[in-house]
């Protein structure tokens, strides 16, 4: 009988085991980005910009040239990379603390300028890497290490909806929010990432893909419950959908 290869590691991922916790969605999202890079045949022309957060070691996991940015600065670094090599395919991979707190200015202005790269924004409603502190995306009432009684909007304001905010700008070509907690959504997320990369290849400007993700470790939930929590808590506040499409 002829053997048929039905599953393998994308070429755009290295074989290094990731350090992600069980049930964490970072690994799934890495794989989707890598699959898209393979499908488009741009691996040897891609430069990824890793950020500071749990995905900091992305520079080891993606099998493409990688630049590690400081906390929040990935969109500015990617601006320099893309302006330095306009023919390369550039993406940033950023968490919600990175993109929506310390790096708010950088993402807003890269988007406003319509910089021609792709942003993969992983929103897990918490600071994972530093051990579960409140993020700008932490939900009202959500308990974290720095909101032990639950996020209090009187003290901390309400969480930022970055996709909706970015979609108000004229620079981005595509703004969408997806999730990866069901097989169908994984497929939708792959399509969204692919679309953002294709728009970049067509020179159409910034593509922004927000992916709702999990942090079982700091949410204090199991892997399965975390996936359910995305449905029960995150999606009601962070609706999935396309917010801008040129």
């Amino acid at each position, binding site marked *: 009988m002829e053997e048929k290869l039905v599953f393998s590691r994308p070429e755009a991922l290295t074989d290094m085991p990731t350090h992600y916790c069980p049930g964490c969605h970072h690994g799934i999202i890495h794989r989707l980005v890598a699959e898209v890079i393979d499908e488009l045949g741009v*691996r040897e*022309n891609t430069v990824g910009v890793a950020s500071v957060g749990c995905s900091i070691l992305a*520079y080891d996991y*993606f099998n493409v*040239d990688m630049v590690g940015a400081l906390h929040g600065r990935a969109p500015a670094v990617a601006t320099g*990379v893309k*302006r*330095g090599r306009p023919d*390369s395919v550039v993406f940033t991979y950023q968490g919600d603390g990175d993109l929506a707190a310390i790096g708010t200015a950088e993402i807003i*202005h890269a988007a406003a300028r319509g910089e021609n790269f792709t942003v993969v924004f992983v929103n897990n409603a918490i600071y994972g890497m530093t051990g579960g502190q409140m993020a700008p995306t932490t939900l009202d009432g959500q308990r974290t290490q720095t909101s032990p009684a639950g996020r209090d909007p009187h003290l901390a304001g309400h969480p930022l909806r970055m996709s909706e905010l970015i979609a108000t700008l004229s620079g981005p070509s595509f703004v969408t929010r997806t999730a990866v907690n069901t097989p169908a959504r994984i497929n939708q997320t792959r399509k969204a990432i692919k679309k953002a990369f294709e728009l970049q290849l067509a020179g159409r400007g910034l593509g922004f893909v927000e992916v709702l993700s999990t942090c079982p470790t700091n949410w204090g939930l199991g892997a399965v419950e975390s996936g359910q929590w995305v449905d029960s808590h995150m999606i009601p506040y962070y609706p999935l959908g396309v917010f801008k499409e040129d």
Partner: protein
Amino acid sequence: MSEKILLKGNEACAMGAILAGCRHYFGYPITPQTEIPEYFAKHMPEAGGVFLQAESEIAAISMVYGAAATGRRAMTSSSSPGISLKQETISTLSAGDLPCLIVNVARGGPGLGCIQGAQSDYFQSVKGGGHGDYRLLTLAPNSVQEMMDLTILGFELADKHRNPVLILSDGVVGQMMEPVSVPEPVTSFPEKPWAAVGAKGRPKNIINTLHLNAAVCEERNRELQAKYKRIADAELRYEEIDTQDADLVLVAYGISSRIALTVKNRARAEGLKVGVLRPITLWPFPTEALRRLAERVKGFLAIEQSAGQMVEDVRLAVEGRAPVAFHGRSGGVMIQLDDVEADVRKLLGR
């Protein structure tokens, strides 16, 4: 060499950068350096380069980091408060072996200070304005010609050693006009096989400064210290004028060295044996030269547009072998020739 043309220091710096092959400039407006971004805004397009006004100094240096990571000659410029904002990335550029040029047309501080030229960013420049054990090769121009020449040299040295280079200028040198002879454009550039440009036909390149394992981080620090030693051994630059028979040596860099030279000339005309030592690199610092002089002179006078920063390095070099006096004005007030002359006479017992 062409005929001389009249330029402002800031214009000479920007023009020098284009001659040096820099095609990527990222900056944010701040006085007294704004002629630099304005020059690039006008001239980068015709040079086929990128001028981008960033949303902040932090974003600007981050863009430089990105462009430098792709192997391009990239630069930013600012003035004191803006340079403070760039420090986290400057440390990271050095740690990541990324060559680039940073220009500080310094103004009076601390805080927002004033917009007049000053030299009170010496500590920040040479003692590690950012975090960690890193070093910044620091060049201090004292003329409009040097604003151009040291900018070109800065790009060469940055590439040679894979380290950021700082031009520490000040608002006076940046704003003053002098005739400049313009050199030919640089045409040969080093290969950068380490750059992140896409892993075509080779293993991937990574630009990274994180080392989670402390032992690995220490090993990386050893490599960095070896780089800094290579720079210190190879790139020391300074000028000694009339020091052979000097009783008193004036030590000054940048705009203060111009004052020191005038004071020295006037003193010599009166028969006073005064010389000048001008550091051109502030790091590395001419420690040995000062130590040699300390064996035979009666004393030193450090002159700075600050409350006294470089003078500490002069004292460290001299190690008590000779007295080191200080003359300075801070907050962007110019040093007065007559005041320095009075100090010189007093120190020489006249």
